C-alpha cells in the first residue's frame, strides 16, 4: 500500500530559483534600499539587510549569531600582501601557492624542536567551525566561519618550556609562489617574512584558532592556506597566514606592521574603539555587505573572554 506523506515544505514557501540565484545581489540591493528609506538613524545597530536568513542552528560557545559574510566576499576581499596590495589581488594571484606538501619548523624554547610535515603535525586534531567577527585595522569587518582547531591544542602537543613567554610565527617566503614578495618599483612592499606573535596566555586562550580554511573546508589559498592564525579580538593583521615557522621565545616578537610603522601599529593590536589609529578613527567600522558604519566593540565584542588578560596593561600605550 502506498502511504502518502505530506510534503515537508509547501510550494508557497519555496524561494523562486531566480531570486535564490540572485540572492547576493538581492541582499546588496536590499541593504541599499534600507539606506534610501533613510530617516531611520540606525547608526549603532547597523542596518541589517531585510530577508536575513535565520542563524545556523547549533552555535558553539564562541560563535556569533550575526549574519555570516557571503563566501565570495570572504574569499574575494582580502589583505594578503604576499599576493598584491589590492583587495582583489589575493583571489586573483594566490593560485601559485602550493599548500601541500607543507612543512612547519618549530624552534626555540620547546621540548622537541623539529621540522614537521603539516599533516603529521595537525592530522590528529579534530577540526571545527568557528563563526567569528573579523575586524580589519582599516575600518571594515566581516563575520567569518573559520574551519580549524584551537592553537592551545597545538601548543600542548609541542610542549614549550616554562621559560617561553611568547609565540612567534612566520609566513612562507618564496617569490615563485608569492609574487607580491618580489621587489617592486618602490622596493619591497613589506620586510618579508611576515612575522606575528602572541603572548603565551593569549595563544592559549580558547578563542585563539589555527584555521585551515573557511566555510567548513580547507583553503582557499587567499585566506592563508594551508594554515593560519585567527585571533578574533585583535585586528586582522595579527592573523599571520601560510605559516612555515613557529618559535617559542622569551622576548616580545617584533611583528611586521610594528616594524613598518611603530607609531601606527603595535604588538597587541587589540580591537579598541577608544584608541584611534593616528590616521583614522577606530570608533566605527563598515561591515562588508552593509552601507552605513556600525559601532566597533571593545575587544571586537569578546570582552568576557579576554579582558581578564589585560587588567594590568595600559591599552592606550600598548595599542
Amino acid at each position, binding site marked *: 500500500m502506498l502511504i502518502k506523506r505530506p510534503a515537508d515544505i509547501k510550494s508557497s514557501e519555496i524561494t523562486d530559483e531566480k531570486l535564490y540565484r540572485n540572492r547576493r*545581489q538581492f541582499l*546588496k540591493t536590499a541593504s541599499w534600499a534600507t*539606506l534610501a528609506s533613510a530617516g531611520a*538613524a540606525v*547608526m549603532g545597530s547597523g542596518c541589517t539587510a531585510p530577508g536575513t536568513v535565520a542563524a545556523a542552528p547549533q552555535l558553539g560557545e564562541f560563535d556569533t549569531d550575526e549574519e555570516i559574510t557571503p563566501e*565570495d*566576499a570572504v574569499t*574575494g*576581499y582580502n589583505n594578503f*600582501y604576499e599576493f598584491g*596590495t589590492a*583587495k*582583489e589581488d589575493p583571489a586573483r594571484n594566490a593560485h601559485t601557492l602550493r599548500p601541500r606538501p607543507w612543512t612547519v619548523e618549530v624552534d626555540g624554547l620547546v621540548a622537541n624542536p623539529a621540522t614537521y610535515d603539516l599533516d603529521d603535525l595537525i592530522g590528529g586534531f579534530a577540526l571545527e567551525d568557528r563563526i567569528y567577527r573579523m575586524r580589519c585595522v*582599516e575600518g*571594515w569587518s566581516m563575520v567569518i566561519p573559520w574551519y580549524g582547531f584551537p592553537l592551545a591544542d597545538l601548543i600542548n602537543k609541542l610542549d614549550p618550556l616554562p621559560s617561553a613567554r611568547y609565540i612567534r610565527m612566520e609566513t612562507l617566503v618564496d617569490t615563485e609562489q608569492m609574487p607580491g614578495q618580489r621587489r*617592486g*618599483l*618602490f622596493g619591497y*612592499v*613589506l620586510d618579508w617574512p611576515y612575522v606575528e606573535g602572541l603572548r603565551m596566555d593569549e595563544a592559549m586562550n580558547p578563542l585563539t584558532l589555527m584555521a585551515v580554511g573557511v566555510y567548513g573546508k580547507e583553503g582557499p589559498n587567499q585566506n592563508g592556506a594551508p594554515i593560519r592564525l585567527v585571533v578574533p579580538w585583535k585586528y586582522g593583521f595579527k592573523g599571520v597566514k601560510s605559516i612555515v615557522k613557529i618559535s617559542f621565545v622569551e622576548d616580545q616578537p617584533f611583528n611586521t606592521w610594528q616594524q*613598518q*610603522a611603530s607609531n601606527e601599529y603595535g604588538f597587541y593590536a587589540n580591537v579598541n574603539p577608544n584608541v*584611534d589609529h*593616528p*590616521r*583614522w*578613527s577606530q570608533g566605527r567600522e*563598515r561591515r*562588508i*555587505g552593509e*552601507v*552605513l*558604519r556600525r559601532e566597533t566593540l571593545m575587544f571586537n565584542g569578546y570582552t568576557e573572554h579576554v579582558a581578564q588578560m589585560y587588567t594590568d596593561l595600559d591599552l592606550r600605550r600598548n595599542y
Partner: protein
Amino acid sequence: MSRTRFLKWVVKPTVFLLCFLPLPLLAWNFFAGNLSFNPVEDITHTTGRWALRFLLATLAISPVRRITGFKELIRFRRMLGLFAFFYAVAHFTIYIWLDHFFDMVAVFADIPERPFITAGFTAFVIMIPLAVTSTKKWIVRLGGRRWRLIHQLIYVSVIAGVLHYLWIGKVIELAPAGYVGSFAILMGFRLLARFRPDLVARIVRN
C-alpha cells in the same frame, strides 16, 4: 560653420557630457556587480580620483596649449576646473553621508585630527572660492591680476589633494604615486618655462 562656432557649439558640449561619464559608468559597475565587496569605498575612491584627475587636467591645459599650439584649449580650462569641484563635492558628500551619516560633530572632529582628512578637506575648501569666482563677472569684479593671483591657489589644492591620496595607504602604492608623478611633470614644465625659457622655446609651437 566657423571653427570658433564649431568649438563652442559642438566640441565643448561634447566634452561637457563626456566629463559626466564616470558617473553612469560607476552606476553601471555597481548594478552589474563589478565593484568590490566594499562598494561604498569604491564609490568614495572613484569620485576622489576623478576630482584629482580633473584638477591635474586643469593644470595640464596651459602646457599642452603651448606645446601643441592649440590656443583654443584655454576655453576648456574653467569647465575642467569646475568638474574637479563637482567630483570633490560628490566625494565629500559621500564621506559625510555614508561614513558619518551627517554627524557633523564627528566630521569636524575628524578633520583636524587626521592628517589625511585635513589635507583632503583643505584641498576641497580651497576649491570653493575658485569655483565661485570662476565666472567672467568675477574676473571683471576682481581685476585680472588679483583674479589670477587667487586662482594660483589651485596649486595648493592639488598638492593637498595628492597628499590626501598618498596618506591613505598603508604602504607606498603605484596608483597615488602616478598622481605625484603627473603633478611633478606639470610643475616641472612651469619651472622650466620660468627659468629656462630657451629650452621650452624649442619644444613649444607658439
